[in-house]
């Protein structure tokens, strides 16, 4: 028996968009950062000095660059555990190239190219071989560490060109070059994420891969780009770290992938995909660096920093859960 159709006059109302959680989170992080800075300025003599502040920015910049790359991968509901290992190997590669007489700009370009290749391999394993991102990049972490140690035979590469070290140590117009590097990375990344077609597709793949595919989006291409971007930014972080410490050490960046992931998650990215921004990981990285720096200045055992980071991740992800509608 066909159900008679009856017209209803009340139209279904779609809910108004809410104030973005991401924006509020960033505001909160900024407030937290301000509070910590204020507290440290009042509590210690050495925090609010130009030297320390420049140091803080330099330290935070490297993690920030890695965290931005990590965020791209996290938005696709993936993860890049190899980020720290890429830092180490890239630092080794750039140092070895310069030692063998390659001009500085060329050595940097070649190392960035190496980062592209690593990211390509990650995406190949994930897209073509169908490996879970966690496994693919975990395997890569181990292998890359091995490659770095093999290349240097476990030894430190010293005696790098002064022009190279100056890249990380100098300032331009009073702003540390490393911080300028963050801006040079963050601004294009932000535009890419929120104002380009590819950015849309990145979120779409993280939100519902099938929907993206059925919309004619080339999902594989999006994934390749995300992993290449992450590895390349990690390679950049490796180059900058090597410039900063002035030597190439294969074990540099041990555990930094976790710092990068933590910065991204503290900055509001969701490991389930489709949520994340560029300012978030920047703030997250600065927050973690400040905790680290502050702990040093206050003469607190630096190991506390790891515990605080863990607590912060739990608190922020818990807040993230709260905003999700319960079923």
């Amino acid at each position, binding site marked *: 028996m066909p159900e008679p159709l009856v017209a209803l006059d009340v139209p279904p109302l779609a*809910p108004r968009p809410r104030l973005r959680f991401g924006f509020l989170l960033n505001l909160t992080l900024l407030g937290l950062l301000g509070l910590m800075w204020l507290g440290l300025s009042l509590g210690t003599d050495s925090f609010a000095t130009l030297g320390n502040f420049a140091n803080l920015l330099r330290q935070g910049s490297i993690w920030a660059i890695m965290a931005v790359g990590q965020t791209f991968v996290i938005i696709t509901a993936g993860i890049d555990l190899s980020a720290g290992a890429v830092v180490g190997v890239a630092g080794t590669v750039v140092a070895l190239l310069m030692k063998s007489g390659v001009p500085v700009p060329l050595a940097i370009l070649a190392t960035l190219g190496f980062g592209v290749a690593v990211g390509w391999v990650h995406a190949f394993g994930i897209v073509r071989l169908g490996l879970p991102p966690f496994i693919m990049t975990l395997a890569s972490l181990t292998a890359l560490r091995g490659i770095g140690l093999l290349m240097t035979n476990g030894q430190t590469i010293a005696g790098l060109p002064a022009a190279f070290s100056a890249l990380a140590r100098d300032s331009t117009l009073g702003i540390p070059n490393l911080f300028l590097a963050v801006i040079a990375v963050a601004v294009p990344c932000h535009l890419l994420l929120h104002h380009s077609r590819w950015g849309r597709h990145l979120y779409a793949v993280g939100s519902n891969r099938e929907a993206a*595919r059925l919309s004619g989006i080339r999902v594989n291409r999006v994934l390749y780009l995300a992993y290449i971007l992450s590895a390349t930014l990690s390679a950049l972080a490796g180059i900058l770290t090597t410039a900063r410490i002035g030597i190439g050490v294969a074990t540099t960046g041990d555990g930094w992938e976790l710092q990068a992931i933590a910065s991204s998650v503290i900055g509001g990215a969701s490991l389930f995909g*489709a949520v994340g921004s560029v300012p978030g990981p920047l703030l997250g990285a600065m927050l973690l660096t400040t905790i680290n720096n502050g702990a040093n200045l206050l003469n607190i055992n630096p190991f506390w920093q790891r515990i605080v980071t863990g607590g912060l991740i739990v608190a922020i992800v818990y807040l993230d859960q709260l905003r999700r509608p319960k079923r």
Partner: protein
Amino acid sequence: MADGGPLFELVGIEKRFTGTYALKGIDLAFAPGEVHAIAGENGAGKSTLIKLLTGAHQPSAGGLRWEGRPVAFRGPGDALALGINAVHQEVVACPHLSVAANLYLGDERVRHGFLRKRAMLRAGQHLLDGLGFAIRAEATLGDLTIGQQQLVATARAAHRGVRFLIFDEPTGYLTRQETEQLFRLIRALNADGVTIVYISHRLEEIFELADRVTVLRDGRLVSTRRTAETSERDLIRDMVARPIEELHYKRVVPRGETLLETRSLSGPGFADVSLTVRRGEIVGLYGLIGAGRSEFVTTLFGRHRSTGGEIRWQGAPVAIRREVDAMALGMALVPESRRDQGLCLNLGVGFNLALPSYARLSRFGWVDRGAERALARRQMDRLTIVAAGPGVHAETLSGGNQQKIVVGKWLARGARLFIFDEPTVGVDVGTKSEIYRVFADLLDAGAGIILISSYLPEVYDLSDRLIVFRGGRAVAEHGWKTAEVETILTEAIGA
């Protein structure tokens, strides 16, 4: 356009998945400008057919012709380029993105590499308004109801210069009003010359919309007829190839003692509801979406706290504070979306059947594997669950068989009152009748049933007593077929 010829044609199409045929020997031509319905049971090959038409799958043999010329799709992009689009059964869209972003997904407006967000938002809102949908383009898609999301998916397909549009069970989650909006949109698109393929289990929708209807069964094409020259009975016969005496199969059994009684029960979303359920009867709850039926049963089941009134179980007042309290009494809730809430799809049938009973199946924490197997076997026989064995993953089973697993696991735990929330949404005719037989078997076994359904013919035909909800209250109660359908509808709407 080839003069007078078909717009889109399947010639000798075959599709195999690891040796088994999903489709075999399909010859089907879609005439330009027609509304062509496709009917068939679950597993008849409808989904595979859609995937071939939209380029998501490639045929194993045979070919496609577009305007008389052979075409081969490497992926969905190729089909989209020809103007072939689909609105899928499960909303296939990105819940995290805005409505506007979804409307333009894969087809974004860009200037100098920059997204033209504001232009897309404006155009998207214009599109939605033009279609008469009360949806804001800047809203996040995931915040909308499933029905509204479905309308967005339709709008999205409509704006893409579409020439051939496939609807796969679009009305499963829609309210009556949303269904009407959708039908209006389909007719408008068709009037603009868009060829429509419409897939639905609801035969009355097919007769309302379609010019022709094709029936698939077991991967083969059974018949293509003009809807004007056929009847529901013919279609059902073609679909199931076995007689269905009655669409809504009902067995009347003697009623027993009272299982559940609520006295003026109130809670979040409903107030002052009094009803009784006895062994051997189906109590139907009918009402529009948001009338408070689901809120009532979830409170009954301990998911929310009641704010007033009393619940009695077999004559004695009981306090149900948590879901386990309800389960311990012998209540079972079969939720609306089986896939999400009722089953562990990537685990075995046997595991699913035993899941609520492991306390009984284990000693000192160790599972008695023999008893576990026996339980699975018993329920599979009792409910005739069609699966190769208890180890088969639940996701590989048909919708009807999945429903039986949900019922079976609660039966095994000794449940006596079953609450079904929209049990037949998105389920085909054959599976529906299987589900109704499960109802009958449950009643025979001395259980009572609360049936929530938004599909009036179903609750009307099945309920021994029918309670109409409106605005959170039970506004009327009727015996089996003692009231006119129109009366019930009027009570539900409050007109």
